[in-house]
């Protein structure tokens, strides 16, 4: 059977993954809508925002194999774009008097702010990435962390345009889950489209074997840069939406805390897999939520039962250690969710080994 190996045929074969993941997200959104409870609604919005962030991280880390500690900086850039462009001019002039006049007068809808945030973050990803993408391994990771520290430091001190460390309030709050769902689904599809694209393929090849990839004509810094810019854009859009979900931003919203939560979700889900990115968020966020309820206290019959405060962090740590002990490459490993069970692949046609990265040394 002679079949043309076009991008279209690869797309047809793999599109089931983003579709299934989107269905999963839609189920969460419907649950929030059906429950109709304010706190639960907010929880689901938080989950969608985490999905956007972790999918943004995956787009770069998963395909390139370079761990980035700095992506939350792009969320910070996006979050402040939302503040600059959506707060009422009167409030802006008192909180951030240093803004240029055209920006001071600007008042755009939240979705436009998300797009602007994505564009602004992508621009800076291009600038930083042009330098950083020449580095590899731990040097690259440390340099991305330095980038995060730089951005945080600038936003914490540039009083007149960021209000320094104090909260910037007055960002219009968007309480319905649907826009967040749409953004999460879009980011899942963008990440999928990139990883099956020519550049995504080249980048994944370079992740597995850099020397052989270069010998096959792959310009590694360039394909890394493409992924960095796209993932920066996703993080920027996520940051802007984050700002709209709570109505305020501070530089420390987008710093170490968010960096480590999002990275651990990616690691637990499986760094080399888009399904892992989404499922990692869903599992860890649900767990965090359940522990929060238990800490707040649950009534069982006459008596009420509550876990002592702080159990949430401890239990989360234990669960992460257990998952990584038994599945070091994360829940999904490097395989994607295709609706089929890889364990029950036909004998003679071995399914993907989703526990560990194949080393290729079998003879």
């Amino acid at each position: 059977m002679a079949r043309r190996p076009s991008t279209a045929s690869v797309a047809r074969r793999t599109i089931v993954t983003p579709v299934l993941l989107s269905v999963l997200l839609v189920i969460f959104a419907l649950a929030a809508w059906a429950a109709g409870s304010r706190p639960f609604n907010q929880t689901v919005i938080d989950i969608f925002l985490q999905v956007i962030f972790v999918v943004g991280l995956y787009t770069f880390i998963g395909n390139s194999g370079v761990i980035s500690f700095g992506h939350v900086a792009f969320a910070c850039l996006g979050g402040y774009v939302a503040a600059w462009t959506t707060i009422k001019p009167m409030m802006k002039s008192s909180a951030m008097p240093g803004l240029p006049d055209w920006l001071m007068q600007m008042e755009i809808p939240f979705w436009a702010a998300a797009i602007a945030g994505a564009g602004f973050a992508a621009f800076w990803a291009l600038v930083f990435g042009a330098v950083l993408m020449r580095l590899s391994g731990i040097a690259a990771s440390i340099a991305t962390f330095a980038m995060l520290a730089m951005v945080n430091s600038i936003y914490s001190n540039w009083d007149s345009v960021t209000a320094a460390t104090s909260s910037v309030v007055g960002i219009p709050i968007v309480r319905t889950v649907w826009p967040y769902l749409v953004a999460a689904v879009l980011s899942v599809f963008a990440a999928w489209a990139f990883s099956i694209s020519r550049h995504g393929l080249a980048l994944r090849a370079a992740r597995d074997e850099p020397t052989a990839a270069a010998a096959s004509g792959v310009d590694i810094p360039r394909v890394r840069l493409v992924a960095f810019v796209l993932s920066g854009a996703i993080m920027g859009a996520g940051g802007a939406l984050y700002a709209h979900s709570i109505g305020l931003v501070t530089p420390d919203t987008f710093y170490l805390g968010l960096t480590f939560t999002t990275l651990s979700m990616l690691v637990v889900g499986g760094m080399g897999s888009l399904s892992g990115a989404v499922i990692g968020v869903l599992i860890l966020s649900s767990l965090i939520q359940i522990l929060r309820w238990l800490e707040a206290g649950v009534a069982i019959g006459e008596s009420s039962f509550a876990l002592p405060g702080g159990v949430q962090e401890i239990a989360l740590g234990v669960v992460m250690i257990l998952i990584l002990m038994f599945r070091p490459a994360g829940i999904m490993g490097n395989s994607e969710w295709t609706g089929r069970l890889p364990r029950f692949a036909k004998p003679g046609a071995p399914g993907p080994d989703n526990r560990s990265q194949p080393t290729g040394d079998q003879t």
Partner: protein
Amino acid sequence: MSLLSLSNISVRYGRLTAVRGVTFTLAEGEMLFITGPNGAGKSSLLRAIAGVTPPAGGRVDFADHDITGQAPEDIARLGLSMVPEGRDVFGSLTIEENLMVGTGMHAGSRGWRARAASELEAVYATFPILKDRRHAQAGLLSGGQQQMLVIGRALMTTPRLVAIDEPSLGLAPNITDQVYERLIALRAERKLTLLIVEQSSTRAMMAGGRMMLMRGGEIVLDGDARALGQSEAMQAAYFGYGDH
């Protein structure tokens, strides 16, 4: 007209000199084996040609371009495709994805998709086992299949010269036979120029073509593989006059 020419190439790793002043030319369509004992500098020479380890001195010309010190991806674009040692397939990618990586560098040129598709069919025709398992993860293939895959991957870039580092490393002899059979057939079909680093000089003699013997970073013998194999000079050079 020579396709590849090296003049006075040397390779150093810190204070260690791996290749000392190697000079030779390779004509279009030739098959050259570089043999020699461990540590003779064979792989270092190959890596210097392909740009993976830039040479410390000398000059490499390929297809009328000075490629000395150029990046490997740029050298690959000119039509010099290297198959690195150790069959380093892209383990988490499928066979077909492995093969398609090399076509990316022609992207954007007119009709590249159609050309990539026909290259793919040609590689599948040469190595039918790859077609049968096109959607299998490359890391799960056997050693012989991985060797075929990396050769196929090199062919996907439509190269003029393929440089292969130790295709027989770690393979059972009958699998190595198959690999060589395909290589020789490919050379005839595509008028491909082959540069093969091979520790086993017997392999080179069986395959024919031209053979060079390296020792201590230098070329000590150069000639017809079969004729050299019979000579006493070969034995003496290979075993270093009894110092082994």
